[in-house]
Every structure is written in C-alpha cells, then in structure tokens.
C-alpha cells in the first residue's frame, strides 16, 4: 500500500537472493509504434483499444490510485510508473537486490480485445518492446510471451516465434478469458508452450465479456479484487475437469497475483465432487488435488495476511513449500515489500525456497 520508505530496511534476513515473479513494465502506445504496421497504428489512433467493457478511458471499477500504482512510483523523468528502466532499477531492482525479475506487461497489450487482430498485432509489438527496451538493457529482467489468447492459432505463432529465446520466461495469459481456460479452443496454446519448454503464467484481471460473478456485476473495486480469486478458482476447475493435464502432462502453470490461501480448500472441494461424479469426467484419471499439486505454482502477492501466522504456514504446507514464488507486483498500489511480507517465523530454508530457489528451478534461471 502507499507507505513511503525513507531508508532501506536491510536486515540479515533480507540479504537472501530474490526472484520477483511479477513486475509490470508500462508501455505508452508510442513506445510500441516501431513494432506496429502503419495500418494498425492508424486503426488504434482512430478506434483505440476495445476491451470487453464500456469505458473508453479507465475501467469499470476505478482503481484506488492513478494507474493502480504506488504514489511514489511515478518517475521523476515523467511518464507513468515502471515506464523508466533507470528509475525502476533505482527504486526496485537495486533497492531490494532483485536477482531476477519477470516482466508481466498489462495494457496496452491488447489481450482480450474485442478485435482479435488488434490483440495479435499488439502482442507481437509488446513482446518486441519488452526485449528491446528492457531485457536487452537489463540482464536481470526476463520478458513474458504475451499472446492474443482468444485466437489460439495466432497465439501459437507468437509462442513459436519466441521459442528458444531465453529472454522470455513464460507465456502470459490473463485470468478472465472469454471461455474458461480448460476449453479445447485454448489447448493449442498449451501444446505450443510445452513444446517451447515455457510455463504458462496466468495473471489476474482482464474482461471475459461475462458478468464478473455468477450472480452478476459487483459494485466496488474491493469486490473486483476478491473476484480475482474466485475467477482463478473457476479457471483451475475448468483446466482440471476438461483434462488439460492428462493431455499435457508436462504443462506447468504459474498463478500470478491470485493470492494462494484458497488453493487447498479448492483442491479438497474438487476431490469431493470428482469422487461423487467421476462418471461424468472419465478423462480425469486422478483426484483433482493431485493435478493441482503437480502442475501449479503460485506467486505470493497479494500475500494473505492473518494475525496468526501459523495459520498461513499451515496453508503453505498444504500447498507445498516448493510451489510458492515470491512476487512484489511493482509498481502497483498493493505491492508486497520483499523485506516485510513473508511471515517472520518461516525457517531460512523455506524463505530461500519462496524468494528464489523455486523460481530458479521453474524458470531454469542460471
């Protein structure tokens, strides 16, 4: 949240290496112009982005701060938060001693646009921009393969274009897709990701075109934050019940900004119902919680908070300490401070696993 830290709070504990699995670099549309054809540039100037909601500028649920960002994250050079590599280095990478940071660009990435061709053109452009403006200039950073996920064929093209390029850490989807992610129409994306040896990262937000809950539209941004977790529960249910992991046994999924405390209960519930109704989904060979345990990683931010840290540690144990990845969400308002957010009673070994070791293994970081 919006606290100003005057001085780095460096303690022995924080000397641990940190891999930050969720950093949001922000492009202005002008930044990606070199990677767009003139017709697409003209189209975007005339019609603009058209996500599946009604607002030309802004969002259905106004953010709590401009661009949902920390008030201290606006670079002195002008431009929006996390648009300036030097300031991002100073305020985040150097300040916290980040060893590796995974970039997950959100808008203007065109994901989920009503016009699928816009999505494809912008995904290509934003991927080029990530490499040219960030990764090539800062070796601590890795890019995401942004894909126009509503068009599986175009997504496969984009993944294959980046396959083998170690500048990219994972394939990036948003959580609110037009259909649930288990549906067959998305399977070519998983196949291409597995072939490229890349995990699939799913970051919360986006607009599916459906109401944000099964009971209609909520009123508040506060609720949108909560529904990011419920939507993720639904997409996991879909991926497991459609049999994605039977078809792609090597598929690895990273949940980003979803929170994690709800994961064990979801697995328990799905196991119970699968046991009762497995005749409906004979292609699901094992209890859902086993797929959950094997195929999913989850980033920590927004770290659930409880005044009884032992309860949080129970939940981490139920998930598995080898499946948690530290993430800060820089530069957003609900940023988790790498120095402060993990429960203080965690052992050093567990702390090392969450801060760096798990991510190094998953992303095959040197």
């Amino acid at each position: 949240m919006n606290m100003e830290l005057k001085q780095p709070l460096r303690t022995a504990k924080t000397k641990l290496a940190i891999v930050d699995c969720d950093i949001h670099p922000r492009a202005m549309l002008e930044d990606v112009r070199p990677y767009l054809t003139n017709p697409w540039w003209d189209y975007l100037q005339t019609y603009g982005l058209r996500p599946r909601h009604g607002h030309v500028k802004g969002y259905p649920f106004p953010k709590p701060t401009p661009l949902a960002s920390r008030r201290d994250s606006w670079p002195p050079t002008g431009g929006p938060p996390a648009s300036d590599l030097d300031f991002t280095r100073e305020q985040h990478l150097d300040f916290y001693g980040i060893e590796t940071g995974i970039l997950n660009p959100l808008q203007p990435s065109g994901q989920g646009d009503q016009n699928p061709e816009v999505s494809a053109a912008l995904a290509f452009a934003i991927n080029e921009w990530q490499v040219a403006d960030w990764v090539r200039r800062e070796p601590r950073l890795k890019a995401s393969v942004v894909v126009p996920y509503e068009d599986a064929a175009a997504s496969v093209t984009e993944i294959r274009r980046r396959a083998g390029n170690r500048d990219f850490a994972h394939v990036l989807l948003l959580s609110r897709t037009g259909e649930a992610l288990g549906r067959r129409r998305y399977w070519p994306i998983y196949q291409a990701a597995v072939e490229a040896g890349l995990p699939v990262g799913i970051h919360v937000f986006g607009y599916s075109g459906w109401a944000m809950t099964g009971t209609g539209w909520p009123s508040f941004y506060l609720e949108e934050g909560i529904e990011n977790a419920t939507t993720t529960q639904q997409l996991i249910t879909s991926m497991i019940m459609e049999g994605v992991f039977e078809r792609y046994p090597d598929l690895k999924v990273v949940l980003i900004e979803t929170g994690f405390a709800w994961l064990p209960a979801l697995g328990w519930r799905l196991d119970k119902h699968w046991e009762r109704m497995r005749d409906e989904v004979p292609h699901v060979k094992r209890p859902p919680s086993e797929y959950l345990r094997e195929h999913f990683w989850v980033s920590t931010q927004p770290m659930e908070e409880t005044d009884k840290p032992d309860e949080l540690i129970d939940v981490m144990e139920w998930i598995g300490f080898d499946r948690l990845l530290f993430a800060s969400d820089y530069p957003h308002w609900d940023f988790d401070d790498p120095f402060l957010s993990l429960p203080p009673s965690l052992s050093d070994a567990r702390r090392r696993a969450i801060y760096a070791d798990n991510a190094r293994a998953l992303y095959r970081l040197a």
Partner: protein
Amino acid sequence: MTSSGAGSIDCDVHPTVPDLRALFPYLDEVWRESIEQRGILSFESASYPPNAPITARPEWRGANGQAATSAADIGRHVFDRFKSSLAICNCLYGVQLVLNEDMAIAFTRALNDWIAKEWLDRDERLRASIVVPMQNVEAAVAEIERLAPDRRFVQILVLAMQEVPLGRRQFWPIYAAAERHKLPLGIHAGSSYRHPVTALGWPSYYVEDYAAQAQGFQSQVASLISEGVFAKFPALKVVLMESGVTWLPGFLWRFSKYWRGLRTEVPWVDRPPEEIVREHFRLTLQPFDAPAKPDLVERAVAHLRSEDMLLYSSDFPHWQFDGNDPVPAGIPEGLRRKILVENPIATYDRLKTDRPQEGVR
C-alpha cells in the same frame, strides 16, 4: 451403524416437488390453465439434475428415482435414522428461474402453501424456509409478511446466484422484513441462471457447475458486507447453506487485507470483514469440503476461529456422505455438541421459543 446426532437440529433438508401438478391445489385457475395450454412440464432446476448422483443418495431414491417426496420420507431418515429432533426444509424447486414476474410470484406462493400443508402440517418436527420471488422485491416482502405469522417458517430462502449480487440496495426492503420478523436470510446453493455460473462463461460439465457454487457464496458474502447491509441491519443473520466450509478462512484473509487498503471506497464498513462474518454469518455443515483426515479437519475448522459458526446439516437427500453421521471425524467433541443443537438454536430465533415439548416424538 448408529448416529451420535441424537437431538440434533438438521438445518438443511430438501423436500422434492414430485410433479408440477402437486402445486395445482395452490394455484389460481388461470395458472393451472396456463400450465395445461402451454405444456409447461416442470420447474426443476439444472442446479440439481434429477438423476445426478449428488441430487439423492441411491438408497434414498424411491421406485421412480425420486427421493424426499413426503414428510414420512424425511421422518424415516432424518428423525428415525439420524435421530434429529427438528429439521428445516429448504425446497429447491426452481421457481427462481421463472422470468415472468407474475408467474414467479404465483408459483412461489403456491410452493410455500404446499410446503405448509404437505410437510409442516404432517410432522410437527418440521420447519421451513420461506421461498421468495426475488424477481420482484415488493412481492418478496409481501410473501414474507404473508407467511411470517406462521412461526413454523423460520428463515427466508434465496439462491447463491441470481440476477445481481445480494448486497445491492434494491434488496434492502427484504432485509428490513427479515430483521423485523427475526428471520435469518438463508442463502442456498443454486442459481437462477441469469448469468453463467462462472465469470468465464458456461462450464462444460455439471461437476463444474456444482463446484462453482463455492465461488457464488464468496461473491455474495463480499457483496453483503461491501454494500453495508450489516451497518444498516445490525440484527440480520445470514446462513450459508450447502456452501462448503473450508474456503471461508482464506477468503476472509484476502477480503480483510483488501478492505484495509481500500476502506475509503466503502466507509460504512467500519471494521474488518472477518469480524462482521463471525458475527453475522453461519454455515451448514454438508458438503464438508476437507479430506477424511481427522487431524486436518480439526486444523481446518480451527482456522474459522469461532465455535459458533457451523450448523448441523445432513443435506438430505443429497448424497454428500456415506454412513449415518454427517459430522466428519476430527470435529472436537465440545464443538460437535455446539454444532448439533446450540448453534442452530442461537441462529434461528423461532427455534428458541417454539421447540416441541420433550416426549412429543
């Protein structure tokens, strides 16, 4: 096998409407004719496909495949077998699905009258929830006012998923009526299918539809609190029925954390959502969503940090458990006693004063 649920109050049992014609005696001529002329077959809800395993435990189904079609059915299982002393009937016949307001109001009234006559009148150990036509708030309030004098109706019944979230101000007259008559708002699994059950559209499989109920409940709790329902109606109680249980603690951590960051958006929420939930919300026990590992069950239930929240339920005739004991192993003995009797009585005001005399059975 015996049940140790002796004297328990079963807060969630489901009478089955055997056939639309069962409601004929309670409908005006115009609606009876309409049913015949238009060939309307049934209002059974897709939330519970009649032959799906969850809808009825196999040995509880009769020759025609239906279960819980009479008060005697409930008596045999819930009272004789599980040894409960009282049971609350939540009829899930899908009148909430009806799009025509006038038709919805007529069928809802008929359904409630059928429950009173065919169930409550036949066994004095039965209680029921008032089904309300949420299609029209004014009519919903009128239905509550019509039935509230009959103290065998102990709660108002709505579904976990409907056209708009339950916290929205348009529904507040219903909560005023609930508070006035000391009737908890009971939210039960199910949808009126105004939207797909997920934010990602229609799922392929029924098992996903049923699993999605847990997300529907989270959305409703978030809405009721965020909109300020409990600031306006401090005596209102809400019972989540057939909601599952173990999703709640993690949900509350997230909700309370976001509230701390975003409370200026909802200034009427003047304390952490987890406190509001522990004071105002209760949950029925089945389907209990944790593995059959007593240590883990005990730990997961401890995360609720309240011994007051769980209410005994068999969910009869839904097939949620085998054997005769709906209470999972791992629930500590002291808590078990609270779940069976004390918590239900503390929740349902009308059970405090209107319990049958000892020996009536």
